[in-house]
Each structure stands twice: as structure tokens, then as C-alpha cells.
């Protein structure tokens, strides 16, 4: 086995171990419940909305885009990623188990890559079903027949695929940034709040800084244009291909920086 293959296998092993330990952990149950919130909201809408509105499929499509963009993406996915990825490395410091990981024969930057993929796998396992459930249950307000009709069209399936892809890319991008934040912060809420503030200011910042706004790039990928008023990430006219490249680029930079930070990390549980 070549060195590169062996390293790839080690990264896969770290990711697998992290995935298994995180998914089997008690804290993940809280995350699953948190990520079920959109489904609850969708179901409540189905139950309480007036009949007239239930019949308006176009309005549902538009509302769904708003709920997805403003609530699911910016709240559920964002804070879900903050919780998962900040804890990925920092959680081991808090549990006093980091030494066991650092005593393994693996380069620390590879270890970070492995932990990133492990947390990403957990994020996708939890968030993708949450997204699918949101889209499906939100449409149920229009009735089962209407939902089936919409969901079996190219447009309906295309929207669903787009929302799933955006969720995945959000986990990729936010995950990398929160993994890096976990090298510096104990509490995921601190970097999450700081980053939310940055995203709100991003439209007014120069381009080289603005590219680090994952939310701005995700907005460019939405299948249905939404206007979110004062909370909007406005002025995003980035082409889809460029938005994806920018998200992946920011991800690569953040994971690399986290790897550098890990190189000099010392075990100190005091």
C-alpha cells in the first residue's frame, strides 16, 4: 500500500470511528430532535392553515423557499453544523479524550480531515432527511394527492434535489468553518453568533472578505428566488457554478487552517 493510500485509509478510519461514536452518542438525540423542528412546523401548517390556502400550490412553493432559506438553512442547518463540527475536535478536549486520538500514528492534519468527514457524514445523515421531510410535509398542506402530483414532476423533484444539495453544501461549508472555530472556541454558540453577524454584514464588505460568506453563496443556489427583507443576503448574483466553487474553496481553506492549528495543539485539560 502506498503512502497516499495508507493515509487515505487512515482518514477513512478516523471518519468512520467518529461517525459511529457521534451517531451513537446521547447528544446526537438532541440534535435529531432539533433538526425535526421544521417537520413539526410543516405539520402544524398542514393542520391549522385555512382550506383556501391549502389549495394554492404556487403559494406553498414560494413559502417553502422562504421557510427553507430563512429558517431551515439559517437556523437548523447552521446551528446543527455549529454544534456538530465545533464539538468534533473541541468535544474531545471537553471529554478529556483528546490524548487517545493524538497518540495514534496519524498526521494531525490528516486527523482533522478525518474528523471533518466523520462530522460531515453525521450532519448529512441527520440534515438531509430533515430537509426531505420539510419539503414533503410542507406540501402536505395542499393535500396528499396534490403533493404526490407536485413531487412526481420534474420541477418538484428538481426543487427537492436542489434543497438537498444546498443542505449538503451548507454542511460542507459551515462544517469546515465551525471545525476551524472549534480549534479556538469551547462553546459553539460564540463562533456561530459571530459568523451570523459576519453574514449579515457580508453584502456591505469588499469582495475578498465577502467570499467567506457561505450563506451568500447558498442563496445563489436556491431554486426559487426569495426576498427575505432586512435579513436577506442581498445582491447575490453569483452564478451557481461559481457559488459551488467558492463554497468548496472556503471549505478547503478552513480545513487546512484547522490542520495547521492542530499541528501545534497541546493537551491541557486544566
Amino acid at each position, binding site marked *: 500500500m502506498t503512502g497516499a493510500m495508507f493515509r487515505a485509509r487512515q482518514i477513512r*478510519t*478516523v471518519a468512520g*470511528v467518529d461517525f459511529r*461514536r457521534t451517531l451513537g452518542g446521547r447528544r446526537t438525540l438532541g440534535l435529531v430532535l432539533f433538526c425535526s423542528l421544521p417537520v413539526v412546523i410543516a405539520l402544524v401548517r398542514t393542520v391549522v392553515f385555512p382550506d383556501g390556502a391549502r389549495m394554492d400550490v404556487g403559494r406553498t412553493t414560494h413559502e417553502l423557499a422562504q421557510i427553507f432559506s430563512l429558517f431551515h438553512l439559517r437556523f437548523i442547518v447552521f446551528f446543527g453544523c455549529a454544534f456538530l463540527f465545533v464539538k468534533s475536535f473541541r468535544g474531545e478536549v471537553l471529554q478529556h479524550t483528546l490524548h487517545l486520538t493524538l497518540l495514534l*500514528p*496519524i498526521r494531525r492534519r490528516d486527523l482533522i480531515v478525518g474528523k471533518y468527514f466523520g462530522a460531515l457524514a453525521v450532519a448529512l445523515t441527520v440534515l438531509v432527511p430533515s430537509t426531505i421531510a420539510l419539503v414533503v410535509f410542507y406540501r402536505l398542506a395542499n393535500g396528499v394527492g396534490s403533493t404526490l402530483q407536485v413531487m412526481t414532476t420534474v420541477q418538484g423533484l428538481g426543487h427537492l434535489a436542489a434543497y438537498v444539495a444546498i443542505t449538503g453544501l451548507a454542511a460542507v461549508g459551515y462544517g469546515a468553518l465551525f471545525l476551524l472555530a472549534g480549534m479556538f472556541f469551547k462553546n459553539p454558540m460564540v463562533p456561530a453568533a459571530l459568523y451570523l453577524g459576519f453574514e449579515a454584514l457580508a453584502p456591505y464588505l469588499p469582495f475578498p472578505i465577502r467570499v467567506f460568506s457561505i450563506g451568500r453563496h447558498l442563496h445563489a443556489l436556491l431554486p426559487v428566488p426569495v426576498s427575505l427583507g432586512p435579513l436577506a443576503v442581498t445582491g447575490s448574483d453569483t452564478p451557481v457554478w461559481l457559488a459551488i466553487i467558492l463554497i468548496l474553496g472556503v471549505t478547503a481553506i478552513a480545513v487546512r487552517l484547522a490542520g495547521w492549528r492542530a499541528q501545534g495543539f497541546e*493537551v491541557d485539560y486544566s
Partner: protein
Amino acid sequence: MTEAERIVLSGVSKFYGEVLGVNNVDLRIGPGLTGLVGPNGAGKSTLMNLMAGLIRPTQGRVRVLGISPGNPEALFRKVGFCTQWDTFPPGATGQSLLEDTLMMHGLARRTARERAMEALETVGLTAAAGRRIDAYSKGMKQRVKLANALCHSPQVLILDEPLNGLDPQGRSEMIDVLKELAGHGHYILVSSHILHEVDLISDTIIMMHGGRVVAEGTIRDVRQEIVDQPVQILIRCDRPKRVAARAFEMAHVVGARILDQGGGVVVSTRDGQAFFAELPHIVLEENLAVETVVPADEDVRAVYDYLIGPEGGP
């Protein structure tokens, strides 16, 4: 011996802010069992953590068989470290912990499972292999830590208080395992505050106090370096009072203490070699029946008391 055949620390210091961890430590550690002793806060764990790269020196250089601790990929193929911490990943069982470790060493899952069970058998944990470590007793946690350090057959074993929490039988079994490994040319560094255990297991000792190495070498060599303390020699014989009387005729003898049950005498002398030269004459002239003649303070406890003090400080 070259640097690639030793654990080498050159001018190593570690400060935590203004707090001293270790100060200007120079060490060359060869194969065999080396005991690291010293009171709490002496810097033993800091020294071990430096060797494993869990912390980095403020000054100086560390090499383990020529490998920098900053290169974990190479280092932990040769090094196993049983740390002071008793914490484990939530939900992990003894078997899963070791399997994960071994898979990180490149073993396939099946081989990793077999090797994990072998290591658990070595430390007597076969029956508890599938149980969650959270539910283990202190002694069992100690054993699983040892198994985790041993499972990939490292050449160097760094063990921070490995016998803590083990019952007497467990200690005895573990000492046998360590002695066997040392006999096969492994490098084993063991810290302990239980001095008689260090005596039992160590070929050489490193004694630390206040972040500094105060003595290093075989226990005999270290004892002989302590020239301000008289050598104590135990003679078990049929007429200890006669031996004491004859001993006091020698100028270098400074004391003699008859043992409580009268079966022997401990002679204190400033010149051990001269006393040993004279002793056969005394035995012949007095027609003594001598059972044993052994140094009474060539052990870690005595050396520790002389250098550090019985309360952990001079």
C-alpha cells in the same frame, strides 16, 4: 549507542506560563526498564507528555529512537503511551477501543479484532472485553489503558503510574509482563510513586524533584554518588553485638544498630569498600556464622530519602 537507539532529551524545559513543568532536563534512556520517581509535581508526567508530543518543550529537543514527537505518524508506530488520564470515548468497550487503535495502525478489522483480544488477554480483561469502559473499575480501566498502549507491540512503552488502582495480583502480573518485555529489548519507562515497586521492576532510575532530574542511573551507581550519606550494610549472623564492637574499631564506621530480634546488625560506614575488605577477617577471627551481608540502603526508598527527603522535599 546512537541517538536512534535511545530516548534523548537535550536541555528540555517546559513552562506553563510562569509555572515550571520541567527545567533544563538532559537524559539518555536506553533499553530495559527505567523507573521515573519523584513526589507529586516533580515533573514526571510533564516529561512523559513531552516524549509523546502531547505537549511541546518551551526549550530544548526531544527524540525518541531518533524520531521527533512532532512526527506522530512515525513515533506511534514505535511508542505506546499509557497516560495518567482515566477517560475514554463515551460508549466505548475495551474491545472497540483497541480495535479502533489497531485499525489506525493499518490493520484490517478482522486482524485488529484478533490482536485486540490478544492484548486484552495479556492484561486479564478477556471476560470484560465487550463491556463499556464507563462501567469498569479503576483497576480495569488501568488494565485497558495498558492494553491500548501495548496492543500494537511498540518498541518503546511510556507508562505513567501504570500500577495505580491494580490489586496485588494485578500488580504482580503486570510487573511480570513489563519485565518480560524489557527482557526482549524493549524500552520501558515507568513512573510510580510506590518506591518498592520501582525497586522491583527497574534496572535504572530517574529521580525528579521540582522539575529537575536530581539523579539518574542504576540504583547502586546513584547510591554511590551520594557521598555525604554513610553506606549502610546489613549483616545477619549469630553474634551481631560482636560484629558491632569490632566495627567500631574502624575509623570509618560511624554507627551500628542491632536489629530488634537480635539476628543481625546494620553498620553505617563512610567507606563501604574498606569495611567489606575488613569483614572477612572479623568473621574468621570471631568464628561467626554469617547468613547474609547486603547493602541496606541500595534501594530506591533510601536514595529517594537521601536526595529528596522522606516528605517529598529536602
